[in-house]
């Protein structure tokens, strides 16, 4: 009696473990596929980034910027940086202190002088 119960339990355990292993196997494969997919999209994004970097450098090349500055001189009036554009920090004015908010003004100009 005991022995047959043990057999049944063991075979149930084996079935359970097999089911678990089967599921893990498929989950691993799925994770691997997802990882591969991600790797691929990382590689593609990096490739796009490289193209963008190259394009950024190409669009910001000094030649082109110089031409753009010259074309838009009317609106931007950009000139090469001059030595006299350097200033000292104490030449910059402090921002004005915020004015007090007056909510209930009392007009004193037309008051009678106190006797």
């Amino acid at each position, binding site marked *: 009696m005991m022995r047959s119960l043990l057999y049944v339990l063991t075979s149930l355990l084996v079935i359970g473990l097999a089911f678990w292993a089967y599921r893990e196997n498929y989950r691993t494969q799925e994770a691997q596929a997802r990882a591969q997919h991600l*790797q691929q999209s990382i*590689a593609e994004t990096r490739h796009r980034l*490289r193209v963008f970097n190259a394009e950024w*450098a*190409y669009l910001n*090349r*000094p*030649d082109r910027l110089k031409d753009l500055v010259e074309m838009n001189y009317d609106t931007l009036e950009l000139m090469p940086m001059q*030595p006299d554009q350097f200033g000292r920090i104490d030449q910059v004015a402090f921002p004005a202190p915020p004015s007090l908010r007056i909510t209930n003004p009392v007009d004193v100009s037309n008051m009678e002088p106190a006797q």
Partner: protein
Amino acid sequence: MTRTPLRPLARILEARSRGENPDAIERENLRLRQEEMRDRARRRAEGRLLVLAALFFCAFGLVGGRMALLAQSEPGEPRTSVAGARILAQRADITDREGRILATNFDTHSLYAQPRDMVDPGHAADRLVEIFPSLDRARLMRDFTGDRKFLWIRKTISPEQQQAVHDIGEPGLLFGPREMRLYPNGRLAAHVLGGASFGREGVHAAEVVGVAGVEKYLDDRLRDPARAHEPLTLSLDLSVQAAMEQVLHGGMRIMNAKGASGILMEVETGEVVAAASLPDFDPNDRPSLPTTGHQDDSPLFNRAVQGVYELGSVFKVFTIAQALDLGLATPDTMINTESPMTWGRFRIRDFRNYGPELSLSDVIVKSSNVGTARIAMDIGATRQRAFLDELGFMQASPLEITEASGSKPLLPKNWSEISTMTISYGHGLSTSPMHLAAAYATMANGGRKIVPTLLRDDANAPGARVMSETTAAALRKMLREVVTEGTASLGEVAGYAVGGKTGTADKPNPTGGYYEDKVISTFASVFPADDPKYVLVVTLDEPVETSGSEPRRTAGWTAVPVAAETIRRIAPLLGLRPTIEPLDLAAIRQASN
């Protein structure tokens, strides 16, 4: 197993009754038993050997099979590793000191043909010539219909061209992926970068190898797969380089010069912040080497490094430096400058006569050949040579571009007394502007040797001491005086205290002697002179300034104004704030007790 007794009673009794020896029966039985045991042992051993052989066969079969599988299978990327996409490109990017891209890679395709698979070669050739007008139709047809199995048509094509080729619908035209080198800034710093082209080519990939400049010199570093993802940082500054090229280009046009070069170097590190040589070229479409004419006239010629010329009076500074350093003279020592000075059958004269004698600093300020030659005689050939060697004038410049090996200075074969005298004012010894910039930087940083470099590195620092701090300070004062009251008066830039020395040297005629009307004019400057940060060397090739009544070619009229404009443009870019020059503190004596 039943065990047969050795002496079965029945047979013994029977044998005894016949009068035979019963021991014979025992021996016989013993023999039989031993034979049986032997057979059993052999069978068992044979069985074991068989099992063992089967096991070995399986093991080796497994190993062999695995090896065969590995050898057969296509290489695949690891699916689970994290750092899979680490290698971005087969060649590292090159950036300037601020990280702005100077050279990068771009994925594109090459076009090749397999004529065996072609359906309609005539149609394909027609359409290909439409897409790529530089192709020759007759030649294509010959290749397509001949017995060639494979041919390259274009090394790189644009996506639009690729689509157009796709639209032909010819199965024999195929594309291979290619990584090509791209210089997004075009002509900027072309001579430093050099260029790249394809090395060994296959259908699936091609090597990109450097052909000149930094690309070739540091080819191994750029192609090292372990460092392909980290860009190579040069010491150049993109905006400074662009400004310098622009000013030099304008200056070259105004001064009617054939070529120009400019070098800006940090005096504390020897890092080259900008190096320009005009005329230049586009490294994306590098021209081929000239087969006729003089190599100097090719845009590929890097004047800043390969332009080895006698640079003239800019060398006087080194003679004076040595005289001061050896204690032969002080800035106030009077030097005999009677012109012309006769030495054997040679005669040295000045640009104009400066009277019987000048102080040492006035020899520099007025640029007197005679005075410098006299000082050189006191120094002597051996010491002069040793000093110039310490400053780096005897070897090719160690700059990290391949062209630097072509900058080997031309030394006199026999360093005679007359050579000593002419070299003292910059004739008879040909060097490149890069040598000059390094030597001036050595002087400007207080006398410690500078090795020019193109690589940004915090470890860059001056080397051994070449001249004393006091000598260097005295020289800087003299250089400043050259600008305030001497030959380089046009070099004054308000707020930047420029100090420098001009040099005008006649160009040597290939047929012998010197040209009368062709000069190399040079201005080597340091700024700000009271605490130098940068050295700027500007060289113009065959300049002539025609605004006056007669053409002027001296550096004071040609190279100096170009250099001044360069400093005016680039000093603000370098973050140098214009300052009021400190007064000469030498007049105030310390009165401590």
